[in-house]
């Protein structure tokens, strides 16, 4: 693809090498839904993050297994009956319920029609690890290994939540599940951006979900990958995204613009440089400059080793400067793994609605994982009413 066919004189204001393959079309965010330890809804999240308050800390009612001795953040009183209805929810697991609640909140906030040309791109890591591991355990504990409950089998498949969202809201467009863990948010946005560009849907619910359960709490605790005082959390968040031209033509206010979402992969020991590189690329692809960045919504808060790597990578990309505003959503809602990326964006939008952040503020949303994955989305504040 040739990208710079104009005469050099005509691009004098853009001295960057023309290495980027094509102009990136911004994605318009027209609705947000979030459910977290801060409570149900975007307002609760925005307030908690803006004020630095901790979310709900009592995990009682979430299973009978003993929990590791460490702080937790869980969603209080998930309003399943009110927001999903009572029909057909008996066999749904918590992952799917969290996703369906976040979806309902997002659709309620969306000023337009949804329609069958809508899609879903949902981030996870293993699906519901409680569902799959309990189903597997049954094969060991039952008198015969096959005496499992077949109604629970779909819960063990990672695309269960995305499929349920499509069924309940009749969404026939692209339906993708991204197993990205810490990278789920930026990967889901990249996937959705391409799907919109290719016409696989007219608008897409882009989300992430993670449930709190004893299995993953022990996993975090024993692996040492989370600092001892960092809480294990849960939540789900969703953005309705569409091409900005579509939103504008329909008169839908644009809450935020996703200007770029870039990912890369680094060799061991090169994570900070790798992150700095994708941040730089992301800013180049939307023609913004490091000094324009007003806020950073961090993803690696509380992760052993990674938090400092993330901060160093961002600082490098911003030329040694620290951004004016620093958001650490996990300080309020805990380690939400696959839900974190979209919660980082929801937190930005929530704080934009609650504080006096500069109009049109430019923010980075970053993610880094120990395996080598790094990612960055560039998000700009829109019309926040």
């Amino acid at each position, binding site marked *: *693809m040739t990208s710079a066919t104009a005469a050099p004189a005509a691009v004098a204001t853009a001295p960057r090498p023309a290495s980027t*393959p*094509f102009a990136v079309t911004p994605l318009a965010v027209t609705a947000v839904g979030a459910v977290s330890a801060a409570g149900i809804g975007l307002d609760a999240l925005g307030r908690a993050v803006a004020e630095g308050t901790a979310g709900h800390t009592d995990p009682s009612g979430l299973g009978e*297994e003993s929990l590791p001795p460490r702080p937790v953040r869980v969603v209080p009183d998930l309003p399943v009956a009110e927001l999903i209805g009572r029909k057909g929810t008996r066999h749904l697991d918590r992952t799917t319920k969290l996703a369906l609640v976040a979806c309902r909140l997002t659709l309620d906030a969306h000023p337009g029609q949804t329609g*069958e040309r809508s899609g879903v791109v949902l981030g*996870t*890591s*293993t*699906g519901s*690890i409680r569902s799959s*591991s309990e*189903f*597997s*355990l*049954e*094969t060991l504990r039952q008198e*015969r*290994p*096959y*005496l*499992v409950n*077949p109604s629970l089998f*779909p819960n*063990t*498949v*990672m*695309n*269960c939540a*995305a*499929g*349920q969202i*499509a*069924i309940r809201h009749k*969404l*026939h*467009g692209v*339906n*993708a*599940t*991204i*197993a990205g863990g810490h990278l789920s948010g930026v990967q889901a946005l*990249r*996937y959705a951006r*391409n*799907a919109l*560009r*290719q*016409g696989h849907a007219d608008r897409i619910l882009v989300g992430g979900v993670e449930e709190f359960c004893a*299995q993953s709490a*022990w*996993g975090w605790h*024993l*692996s040492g990958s989370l600092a001892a005082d960092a809480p294990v959390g849960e939540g789900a968040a969703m953005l309705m995204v569409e091409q900005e031209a579509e939103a504008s033509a329909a008169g839908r206010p644009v809450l935020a613009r996703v200007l770029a979402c870039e*990912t*890369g*992969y*680094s060799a061991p020991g090169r994570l900070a440089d*790798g992150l700095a590189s994708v941040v730089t690329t992301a800013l180049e692809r939307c023609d913004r400059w490091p000094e324009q960045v007003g806020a950073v919504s961090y993803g690696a808060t509380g992760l052993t080793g990674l938090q400092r790597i993330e901060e160093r990578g961002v600082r490098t990309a911003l030329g040694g400067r620290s951004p004016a505003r620093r958001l650490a959503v996990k300080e309020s809602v805990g380690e939400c793994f696959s839900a974190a990326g979209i919660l980082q964006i929801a937190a930005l939008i929530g704080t934009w609605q609650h504080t006096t952040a500069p109009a049109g503020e430019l923010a980075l949303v970053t993610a880094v994982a120990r395996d*080598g*994955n790094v990612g960055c989305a560039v998000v700009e504040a829109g019309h926040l009413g």
Partner: protein
Amino acid sequence: MSERGTRRVVVTGLGAVSSAGMGADEFTASIRAGRRTTSAVRSFDTTGFPHVHAGEVHDFEPRRWLRGIDPGQWGRSSQFAASAARLAVEDAGLAADDLARGRAGSVMGTTSGESAVIEELVGAWAADGLKSLPPDLVGSAPAGRIAAAVNSELGLSGEALTLATACSASNYALGYAFDMVAGGDADYMLAGGADSLNRWAHAGFYRLGALAEEICRPFDADRSGILTAEGGVALLLEPYERAVARGARIYAEVLGYSVNCDAEHMVHPDPTSIAACIRAAHRSAGVEPEQIDYICAHGTGTRTNDATEVAAARAVFGDRIPPISSIKSMIGHTMGAASGFGALICCRALYDGFLPPTAGVERTDPDLGPGVDPVPGRARPAQPRIVENHGFAFGGNNAITILGRVA
């Protein structure tokens, strides 16, 4: 509005880790011969299961294939994916350094991710409680490790994306990789999928009444269900111009693809939605139904799948349904890797000139209606020019890719 990238995208490397052998050549020879490579399961204790057959990769030795990563740090599905990717790059005749220096990434599909790792963790839980979970295994459990393993093995610095759209995931991956190369986001993409055998899926499919006892016979009147299976598959995609410039062997061109969602039921497929997906794939590829020479079916071996898939094809192709066969009759259902293996055999069918068979068909089910040609027995010599590769999944996630011979 569709906005297609301008670069033509071709497949120049194929890699397989399967019950039918290691590497695309062994795999293709086995499939062409119509050899059934499913067998009694060894990787988990089958005591108490009435049906114990599956498409298992026996005696897999990851250290024989992997050079960049230490297999001890990665789960079985990641080992499959990374080995298949390594084999694909070697098959493409591409120097590893050239690949790593290029703008290269991977996108891999899966159904159950690192399910074998999760079942080891469940074993520890059952024996000594959750506080006894081995930390190394916890770190290997995320499904996203599958694409990460490919990038780590090959030293790739581009995207490492794992798509968990269940049993159509490899076709999702192939479609996304196609867009990334066509649009100029990447110069090389490894696309495919991986899954491991596990007790829970074996039990689940048995309880759904969908598990065959010993033989998977799609399209046969006496079919009795699926056989679960495992493996890893990878296709190397690059721009046509680049492949020609470096004198690469070009197996096939990726012409287009489509994805959609039934939005009806978690486990029962919907023919109307699948037909819409086929039509959209044809539009994407710029082809008409009469140009399709062969369909590599989803073909799981259940009555429901056969009836739905043939009805969808009939809705699009009318009375002239192209030959439609299922390689699951030989290797079983490799889940997230299944449509990747389908794509691989489509590439070889286009390049070598044959139609892949359906093994074990003795009497094509008359209930499927007239004109269903499942290519029974062994591969049929033919010169297909454009072929269609189906992938359907739990959750109603349909994905169809169209591949063509490069003249």
